[in-house]
């Protein structure tokens, strides 16, 4: 079935390339069939299925480039789009930094990420999973909110330089916040290509337990504390770090915190971070939006800033090979190396510190120091003398990420997948909490 579908997609993209009069042409297709079941107050309140497919054309005359998309994916629709994009490209100024559409850079990773259980899941199955979460929340006198999403998608890219990439995959994600009695909140999520791997009851139980344990939070004076970040929070932090620094484009433009630091030790030597679209523990992604096979890129190796992510535009401009991270050096499969600790050991080794389940609304505070700000959420706890002594009201942090990682003392052995980041728990020597809120 998949090969038949790929055949039709390739034929459509081939039609676009044949029809185009541009010097170079790229045709790509992004299709999806998705469903999302959202729940709140222990009821399903939004429930949807949607499908769409979009063809994108990029046309090049010399160094003039233009692009466009349409979701009218019959032959006439594609020809109309090609005509439109070509007329735009002809009117363009030359971009002297543009070298070429990409040539194939490496063989595509041999990965399989399609799971029939996900693709064929029904609204009733998703409702039953939600019911499992709600039942766990009921046990602690709480209410559950969250979302269960499933997605089946096709990606295909062909260009006149020889790129010819096709892939079909699936993903499933369940996240829940349980509001417990007396001001407690708890969170849990799971992401997998295979919905059968997601244990809704276990996630409901995890969030419900944390909601119960975080009831009646007390105020904590802001300041610097030892800090344990659970994997949910670490994933958020690593995503912010990637946003502020791992893009080759940002680096060469001088607006990455890594500028001038490649080859230097920037964080604790226990920290290694890489991007690998072929890692089966993530939602695998064999190629980028230009159809270029994803290379494993060791971004930070044993604490040393090592390498960057490139699309073809910046790579060719800088005399490098694209790493398969279009557009713009985008990280889609970020992984942090695990350690050998568990969270209980981290707590036992904390004199006075804060355990953070999750962050909320993180944003850049200062780009060149890779500082970010945000709030804690859904389970924040004070630790004293090796044990959790109380839930605390949520805190705002403003913290340089490299400084925090420099103080890494313990790293969890278990990794947890957020949508695109695979992260462990981390215990850090200090983390700066700058203010507090009322709940």
């Amino acid at each position, binding site marked *: 079935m998949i090969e038949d579908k790929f055949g039709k997609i390739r034929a459509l993209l081939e039609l676009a390339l044949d029809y185009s009069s541009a010097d170079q042409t790229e045709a790509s297709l992004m299709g999806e069939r998705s469903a999302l079941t959202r729940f709140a107050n222990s009821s*399903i309140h939004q429930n949807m299925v949607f499908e769409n497919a979009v063809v994108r054309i990029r046309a090049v005359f010399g160094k003039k480039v233009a692009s466009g998309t349409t979701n009218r994916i019959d032959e006439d629709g594609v020809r109309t789009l090609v005509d439109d994009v070509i007329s735009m490209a002809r009117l363009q100024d030359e971009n002297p930094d543009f070298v070429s559409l990409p040539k194939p850079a490496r063989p595509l990773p041999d990965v399989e990420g399609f799971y029939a259980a996900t693709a064929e899941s029904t609204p009733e199955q998703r409702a039953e999973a939600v019911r499992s979460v709600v039942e766990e929340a009921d046990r602690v006198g709480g209410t559950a909110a969250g979302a269960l999403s499933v997605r089946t998608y096709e990606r295909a890219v062909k260009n006149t330089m020889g790129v010819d990439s096709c892939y079909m995959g699936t993903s499933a994600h369940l996240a829940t916040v349980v509001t417990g009695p007396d001001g407690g909140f708890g969170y849990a999520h799971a992401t997998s290509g295979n919905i059968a791997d997601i244990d809704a009851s276990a996630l409901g139980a995890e969030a419900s337990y944390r909601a119960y344990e975080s009831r009646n939070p007390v105020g904590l004076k802001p300041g610097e504390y030892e800090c344990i970040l659970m994997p949910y929070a670490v994933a958020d932090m690593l995503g912010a770090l990637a946003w502020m620094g791992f893009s080759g484009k940002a680096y060469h433009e001088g607006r990455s915190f890594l500028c001038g630091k490649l080859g230097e030790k920037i964080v604790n030597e226990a920290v290694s971070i890489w991007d690998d679209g072929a890692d089966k523990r993530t939602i695998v992604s064999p190629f980028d939006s230009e159809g270029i096979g994803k290379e494993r890129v060791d971004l930070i190796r044993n604490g040393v800033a090592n390498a960057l992510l490139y699309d073809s535009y910046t790579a060719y401009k800088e005399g490098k090979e694209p790493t398969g991270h279009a557009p713009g050096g985008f990280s889609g499969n970020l992984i942090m190396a695990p350690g050998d600790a568990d969270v209980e050991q981290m707590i036992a080794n904390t004199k006075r510190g804060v355990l953070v389940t999750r962050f909320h609304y993180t944003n850049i505070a200062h780009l060149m120091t890779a500082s970010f700000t945000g709030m804690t959420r859904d389970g924040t706890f004070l630790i004293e003398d090796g044990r959790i002594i109380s839930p605390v009201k949520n805190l705002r942090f403003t913290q340089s990420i490299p400084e925090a990682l420099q103080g890494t003392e313990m790293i969890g052995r278990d990794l947890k997948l957020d949508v695109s980041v695979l992260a462990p728990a981390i215990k850090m020597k200090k983390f700066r909490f700058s203010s507090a809120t009322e709940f």
Partner: protein
Amino acid sequence: MEYSGDARQFCDRVLERARECGASYADVRILRRDNEEVLLRTGKVEHLDRNSTYGFGVRVIVDGAWGFASSPDVSMETGARIAEEAVKVARASSIVKRKNIRLADVDVHEGKFTMKYDVDPFDVPLEDKIGLLKDADTVLRQNEGVKLTDCSMEFWKFREVFASSEGAYIEQEKVESGAGIMATAIRDGDVQRRSAPITSGGDYAAAGYEFVESLKLVEQAEQTAKEAVELLSAPACPSGDFTLILEGSMLALQIHESCGHPIELDRVFGMESSFAGTSFLTTDKLCSFRYGSELVNITADATLPGGLGSFFFDDEGVQAQRVDIVKEGIFSGYLTSRETAAELGWRSGGAMRADNWDRIPIIRMTNINLLPGDYSFDELIADTPDGIYAADVKSWSIDDKRLNFQFGTEVAWEIKDGSLGKMYKNPIYSGMTPEFWGSCDGICDEDDWRLWGVPNCGKGEPMQVAHVGHGTAPARFRKVRMEGAK
């Protein structure tokens, strides 16, 4: 449009099929959305993109629960199939429900409505658009300290049909246009930027190309570049509690985050609690809670001409309205949908919008506006012996009930003895929402009041990006916590 002549027939068929399958309520939306983006980056056209999408979505209530399905194939056969699928999804929703959905009553409307504009931006030659951006870029880069520039414009055209099982049939058309410039100066590991007229791609309006020309990007470029370069040598913003005057576009973000989101009644009822969060403005506070000082009057107004959050009818067929949100400092109203309004025994305030045909409508901001006061800008500065004037958005974060916020601005200036003084870089201010608005003791008048267009408000799952507006004039706040990084 593809459905021309057949749209009503298509909608009738979809609604009929939904009812046949057991829907007690159904609506269908057909949308064609065209978009064009032009980005000139440091003198080169880096992004030139035209995007078009077309399709329909069907929303139904079955057994007291919601279902939604959509397709890009606007045909009779697919319309009936998608109606059946929406019903199936709704029946699954009813497996996990605590109560039945109730909708507030609505007046049923029929008609065709087109928002006025002078020049269709999709008819303006590409050379003219690129030429305008190049002219602005040239001026920006005449300043040698500027290392990167971003000059961009973007346009949308929305053509939408809404029909409901209650008899509504509404066609709407709207054009939106906007543009902006940004200069980035880099030296010795420091990166500073200035934008005009507002950051994140510029200012936008429900208007044609005439709005882009009115922004005077070329005329603003020299000062924008100069300030970006000056920031490299500026001292860091001092830390401490200060009297703070916020420039209008920064105040637009302040309103957006600390007022616009917490008045969304779906958030208040916990419907977004797992993702974006809830709200401190719970229903027990309605008409009694002091949100701000007596000077603070805030409205949600979807009827403002040119507003990015303006429309004729929302995506439930409810007519656009002006709603009082804060009256003389007292919290007074919400952004509502038919479902949430029914919970309070109200009629909907008309705030339901979806960002595409394959998304369900959710409560979105319209134009959330701080009404003008009576200071001129010069008077407000002159009336401030000691303080800080901060301008243009750089960073933002707020807690999940919209209380504790921290915002960074692109630039600030000292206010000394009633005059603007030296420039500061990396300003950050923070606070708690009611205390902050409670400290407001001066708002500029109508001459300084401007309706800003914000085309990037994110909410919901899957994420939907709404186009909203905020009317503001510069305003003054007391004892605001500030800091600045070196």
